[in-house]
Structures are given as structure tokens and as C-alpha cells.
């Protein structure tokens, strides 16, 4: 993992001291709320529906075990004993008190963490494939790229007051996009050109929210040397031409759509040509310096034979769903589901965080990943230690075997916590999980991504769910609209809107009907998404509304 130097530490500590002073001045009245609000937002502190909420940055979803223990400590000392993994791989605390936040930030700084740029119209936390550096299908580990982007975008003087927030995602595995790069303001895929050189495919103008758009190619192959100048040029075009008069039309996706990708690309290329690349370009030596921090861990070769058939059935089921192949023979990637049907998706108690940190120390080189699907990952586990990991997860009540199944639901906090929400989303996810709790049924249904948002801002990514659910409210009653056929991967698609909304009870029945319809109609090897694409909207809509 990347190790920050003394300049990073000094900067983060000075920021904590600044914010401590700002909180003191707010509490004694020297700062008004109007003056204080932008300052607290710059430090990740929101005032939500019922209380303050602190959003802590987890750069590209990578944590050391001591950092996860610190998050556990924050949850226990300053909050209510838990944290919430977000769809940007960050961690939120729902109940901090204003006067405690400077101490929380000081504690975070002691383990090289902070909450900077988790809010505001700046470049937010860069997200990344959670299997980075461990996936057999990646061209190159994307974490050095993500770290380079973090360094470039942190407090960038030109890009701290953009027309609107800006989200970047990166993946090193363009054939299996697990970072949702086409639904970001900028998505970057590591690619190889015809000459075998590794560079970047830059995608621009994607996004969800009230105007969902799939990103388009800005540059099919950007050489590594040119990446930062090219991104700088792109950001300058957005900063100059992006709308500032209407926050709902201020994201880069609107600019790209209204300008057209050809003209937008021309503007970027024109700006790029006018830049002096030496001002910002990062050469091979610096890239190699960063990459060295992400060198593969010291894998061991004395892995014992692993006889799965001799193991308990529950363990075998868990291996089947939650464990995926690793690039290194004898190792495996372990997904830890945070989708206990009785809890909110992404919630993890402080006790559980410590258990995961301990497992990471014993079995995965002390490193943990958070995922945009609101789970965690131990990226490098010896196959002959999988049983020990599972035993530890069982003891921590984290053994749910539902990764990528219907119980693995992405869900925003909704009206239970969020000030912007129009309806609740957590109870909907719990009701779906309860309806489909039978593991054999989940397995039989196969890959399924249900994504739920409690408002049109789409933090639950409902537009790209195989089944997307949007919570709304009219005349004091919550109702839920359904989209089908969304896709967050390399074959990204915005889901098709069905018709009239449902009450929560009707919704669960409707989902069961379309799942049953899919099970009846699917052909050999088809996922829900495949069957939907083959049969089309009308057939599924008929099932959803029980019009047969």
C-alpha cells in the first residue's frame, strides 16, 4: 500500500488543526452557519435528516488493518458502534457530534486518513476495482494509477470549485469492469494497444442521478506519459464550459451531451495541444516509484492441498459464492458480504471491523478493500487458509454467502438517514432479502444485481441495476418505481423504466413475479440480464404487473 510522506502527514495534521479552530469559532459564534457550512463540507461533515454525518475517505477502497481498527474505534467512541460502507468505497458515520469531529479527524490523521474531498464540487475519492492487483483478468494493477490521480486531484488549485462534484473510477480489467467506469464523470480502463504498449482508455460523460448517461470514449488510447496533461485539459474544458447556473445541469455529462462528443473531444485536444506537458506530466521514474508501493505481496509456495469435499456444506456454499480465483496459484480472493438480511446493506459494527482487521493480518497481508457494492474484500488469501477465514467470519457473523446473488443488494441510506431522500430504501432491501433468503433459491437464480435508491440522485445506482428500484413519495405515501435491464459493467446500460410505481408490499411481490418469470423462461446458462435482453421489456413488464 502507498505510504504517505512527511509532507502528506503535515498537510493532513494542519487541516485537522484548521478545522478544530473552525469548529471552536462556530460553537462560540464567531462563524455563522453560512460561513461554517462550506468549511465543514470540505471536511466531509454533513448535516443529515436526523444528525451530523461524517464521510471518511477510503482512497480507491484500500485500507490497512490498523486503519480499519481506527474506523472501528471511531464508531465505538464517537458514534453508535458501527460504520456504513458507501457506494464510493468510503465509510460514513451517522451520529457524530460536532464538537467531537476534530478529535475524530485527529484520530484518522494518526493512521494517514482524512475526510477531505468527500463532499463539495471537487474531484471526489477515486474508486477502483476491488480485486486490483489480485485479479487474473487485469492487464495491470490500477492502484498506482488511482494513487497518481489521488495525488494530482488532492487540493488541485484549479479544480477545487468545479461547476459540480466530479467522480473518477479506474479499472485494470476492461473485460470485467468491476469499477463501473462507464457511469462516472471520467472512467479509465487500462488497455493495451496493437503494439503491446499499456495505456489508458478514457471515457467521459457518464453518470447516474436524475439524468443517467453511459460515458463515451474520449480517447481510445492515451499513453501513460500523457495521462495527467490530458485529464488536465479535460477538466479545464469542463471547468470553463460546464454550467454553473443550474446545479441539475452542471455535471460534465450534460456538457458532453449538449456539446456532442466530437466537439467536446476537439475542445479537449485543442486545450491539450496548448498545454506544456512538462508542467504536469509524470514520467516513468515517478510512476515506478508509486507502483513499487503496490508490488505483489510475498506469496508463499508451501500451499497445502485443499479438499473442499471434506468440508461442511455451509463452508462449501460460501466458497462457491464468495471466493473467486486469484492471479497467484494457491491463493484466492475472499469477498466478505456486508449484506446480512437483518441489517442495512454496507453496515458493519466496530466489533466486526476488528474481526476483519484481525483476519486481514493473519491471512491477507494486513490489507482490506471496500467495494462500491458495499462489501469488503480480503484480496490475497492462501487457499489452505480459507477455512480459517470462514471460521473467523462465522464468529463475527459475517459469513453470508450471497455475493453477486439476489441478496447482495446495493442500497443508499434513503430517508432513514439522508436529508435528500424522498423514500426509505433500507426496509425495501431487507424485505427483498427476507423474501429470497433461501440460499438454494438464491443460487438457482444466479447472478443478480438489485440496486435501490431513495431518491432521484441515485446513490444506490438503481439505473444500472439488473433490477433497479427508485423510492419516491407522493401525498405522504412512499412508492417505488422499477427499472429493468441496467448493467454496471463493460456492457453498461441504463435500465428501462417500467410503468406505475408500487407500494413496498406490492413491489416485493412484483419482483418475485419477474424473478419467477425469468426462471421459467431462461435458456441454458442465461443470467437474468441475458434473458431480459433476449425477451425484451414487454414480456417482463407483463410479469411485473401480473397482466398475464
Amino acid at each position, binding site marked *: 500500500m502507498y505510504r504517505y510522506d512527511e509532507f502528506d502527514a503535515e498537510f493532513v495534521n494542519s487541516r485537522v488543526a484548521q478545522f478544530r479552530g473552525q469548529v471552536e469559532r*462556530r*460553537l*462560540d*459564534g464567531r462563524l*455563522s*452557519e453560512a460561513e461554517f457550512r462550506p468549511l465543514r463540507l470540505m471536511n466531509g461533515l454533513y*448535516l*443529515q*435528516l*436526523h*444528525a*451530523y454525518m461524517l464521510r471518511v475517505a477510503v482512497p480507491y477502497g484500500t485500507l490497512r488493518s490498523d486503519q480499519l481498527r481506527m474506523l472501528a474505534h471511531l464508531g465505538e467512541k464517537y458514534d*453508535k*458502534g*458501527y460504520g456504513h460502507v458507501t457506494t464510493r468505497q468510503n465509510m460514513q458515520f*451517522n*451520529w*457524530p*457530534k*460536532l*464538537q467531537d469531529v476534530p478529535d475524530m479527524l485527529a484520530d484518522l490523521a494518526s493512521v494517514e486518513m482524512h475526510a477531505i474531498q468527500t463532499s463539495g464540487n471537487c474531484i471526489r475519492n477515486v474508486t477502483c476495482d476491488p480485486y486490483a492487483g489480485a485479479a487474473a483478468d487485469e492487464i495491470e494493477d490500477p492502484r498506482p494509477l488511482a494513487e497518481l490521480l489521488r495525488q494530482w486531484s488532492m487540493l488541485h488549485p484549479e479544480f477545487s470549485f468545479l461547476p459540480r462534484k466530479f467522480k473518477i473510477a479506474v479499472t485494470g480489467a476492461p473485460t470485467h469492469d468491476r469499477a463501473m467506469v462507464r457511469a462516472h464523470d471520467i472512467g479509465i480502463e487500462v488497455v493495451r494497444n496493437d503494439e503491446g504498449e499499456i495505456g489508458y482508455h478514457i471515457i467521459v460523460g457518464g453518470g447516474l442521478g436524475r439524468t443517467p448517461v453511459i460515458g463515451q470514449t474520449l480517447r481510445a488510447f492515451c499513453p501513460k506519459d500523457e495521462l495527467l496533461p490530458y485529464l488536465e485539459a479535460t477538466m479545464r474544458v469542463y471547468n470553463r464550459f460546464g454550467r454553473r447556473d443550474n446545479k441539475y445541469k452542471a455535471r460534465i455529462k450534460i456538457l458532453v451531451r449538449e456539446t456532442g462528443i466530437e466537439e467536446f473531444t476537439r475542445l479537449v485536444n485543442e486545450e491539450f495541444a496548448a498545454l506544456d506537458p512538462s508542467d504536469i506530466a509524470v514520467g516513468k521514474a515517478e510512476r515506478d516509484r508509486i507502483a513499487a508501493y503496490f508490488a505483489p505481496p510475498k506469496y508463499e509456495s508451501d500451499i497445502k492441498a485443499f479438499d473442499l469435499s471434506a468440508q461442511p456444506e455451509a463452508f462449501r456454499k460460501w466458497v462457491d459464492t464468495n471466493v473467486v480465483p486469484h492471479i497467484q496459484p494457491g491463493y484466492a480472493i475472499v469477498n466478505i458480504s456486508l449484506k446480512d438480511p*437483518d*441489517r*442495512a446493506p454496507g*453496515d458493519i*459494527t466496530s466489533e466486526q471491523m476488528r474481526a476483519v482487521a484481525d483476519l486481514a493480518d493473519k491471512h491477507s497481508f494486513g490489507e482490506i478493500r471496500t467495494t462500491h457494492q458495499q462489501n469488503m474484500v480480503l484480496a490475497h488469501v492462501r487457499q489452505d487458509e480459507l477455512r480459517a477465514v470462514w471460521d473467523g467470519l462465522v464468529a463475527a457473523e459475517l459469513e453470508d454467502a450471497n455475493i453477486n446473488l439476489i441478496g447482495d443488494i446495493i442500497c443508499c441510506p434513503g*430517508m*432513514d*438517514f439522508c436529508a435528500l431522500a*424522498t423514500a*426509505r430504501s*433500507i*426496509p425495501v432491501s*431487507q424485505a427483498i432479502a427476507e423474501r429470497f433468503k433461501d440460499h438454494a433459491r438464491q443460487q438457482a437464480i444466479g447472478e443478480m444485481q438489485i440496486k435501490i435508491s431513495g431518491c432521484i440522485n441515485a446513490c444506490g445506482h438503481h439505473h444500472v441495476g439488473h433490477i433497479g428500484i427508485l423510492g419516491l*413519495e407522493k401525498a*405522504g*405515501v*412512499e412508492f417505488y418505481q422499477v427499472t429493468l435491464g441496467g448493467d454496471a459493467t463493460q456492457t453498461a446500460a441504463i435500465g428501462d423504466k417500467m410503468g406505475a410505481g408500487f407500494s413496498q408490499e406490492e413491489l416485493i411481490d412484483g419482483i418475485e413475479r419477474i424473478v419467477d418469470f425469468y426462471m421459467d423462461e431462461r435458456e441454458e446458462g442465461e443470467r437474468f440480464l441475458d434473458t431480459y435482453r433476449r425477451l425484451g421489456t414487454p414480456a417482463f413488464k407483463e410479469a411485473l404487473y401480473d397482466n398475464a
Partner: protein
Amino acid sequence: MSTLKHKGKGPQGMTANELRSGLNVWMTKDFEWSRDYADAFLTEDEALIEKMDSVAKAAEAANDVVGAYFIDTVDGVPARYRERFRTHGPSYDTADLIAES
């Protein structure tokens, strides 16, 4: 300073968030603040509404509360769904499971 404007319909309540804790509060009949909506003072009396407005502005200026505003109510409960929801807190909170265990 507050930007409070009384434009509501029906009996009016006054709500805000405590500056320090961030928790929701409602103005009581004694023009104090309570975290319990059951204590909320609801009135259509214009003079009292004026007083609620000035007390809320003073409370913001004194850094006791933040973001004060009037809410419409019907039959003793907030008219808007969002405001009704604020009166009872999250319908689900992992903290409750932790407290039970």
C-alpha cells in the same frame, strides 16, 4: 441569521437541529427546544407565530440551534412526509441491533 418566513398553512410548528449534536428539535410552548415532537407547540395564532420566529432567530444567533424553519401540521402531525419522518428518527438503525445484543 435565520431566513425564516412564515408562509404555511394550518397550525405551525418550529423545528431545527441542535448545533452541537445535530439532533432534531422542536419548539415547545415555553419557547424552549425539545428533542421530542410530543412537546412541540403548534399554533395558528399570528402573534405567537411571530414570537416563535423571533425566538428561533435568537436561538440561531446564540448558536444553540441551526437551520430553524416552520412546519405545517394537520391534526397534530407534520403535513409533509419528510417532516413526519423526522419526528420519530430512522425506522431502521444498526445501533438498535447493537443495543439489543
